[in-house]
């Protein structure tokens, strides 16, 4: 699947995915660039930007102590 995506990047104009390959299932760095307009293209662009951000340590969540009361 990854190889197929790389091939797509290199031969974007004429590459055809097989019937069982979906863009959304490809690892993000290998997804084709979506350059067409349209709201779904915008979703793909934003998601790619988001997932390209550096990750941070997992600190869990919440705050210490009892702050349940407003």
């Amino acid at each position, binding site marked *: 699947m990854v190889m197929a995506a790389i091939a797509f990047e290199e031969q974007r104009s004429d590459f055809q995915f097989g019937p069982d390959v979906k863009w*959304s299932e490809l690892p993000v760095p290998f997804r084709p660039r979506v350059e067409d307009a349209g709201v779904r293209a915008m979703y*793909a662009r934003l*998601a790619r930007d*988001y997932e390209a951000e550096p990750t941070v340590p997992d600190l*869990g969540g*919440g*705050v210490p102590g009892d*702050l349940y*009361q407003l």
Partner: protein
Amino acid sequence: MTDRLYLPPNGAEILQGDIFDQMPSVYVESRPLLVGRRWKQDDTRDIWQVHREDGPGPNGGFKWRMDQGGESGMLVHAHLGMAIVLSHDCEIENDRSARTLAMIRPIGQLKEAAQEALFSGRPGDGFYAIFPLERQTDDPKLERSFVDFRRLTTMRPDVLAASRRIASLSEELRSAVAQSFKLYLFRRVERPAADVR
């Protein structure tokens, strides 16, 4: 078939990007603030008294400060409608206090030109403060609408547990909403070279 943007809620676990129906979105419109205190109850109603913040106040005074617990009955403007969970999954897992949701509004609340710009997907078009939600005709169905990042409401987790969840976002759409929210709050704006010092 096009990949679905919205998926049926998956199990009991609430996740970032989940969409709820009939959720409160509250908004403080003006001052002086109005504070309600329960006065009495009959068979069908709670009867409250309302006090202006600049008035004499209720017996014992207002309880605004943190160490007084705050006022729990302030009168504010509110809608009930769809809302999307913005709290991070790690916060949902570990924080017992607060969940943050953004209002989802029907597309008809925007002028047609704004609708076109919002859903065009053109880079540099659209708006940072709102995010387009495309229509889906498969279950879970959703009409064209938009997230209003300006209209956030925080609530206790129990409020979500007692409410109706209608959909979860696809992984890609979740990431897109996250990036869009980040840009709304923390975008770095291009400036003409002359303005850069």
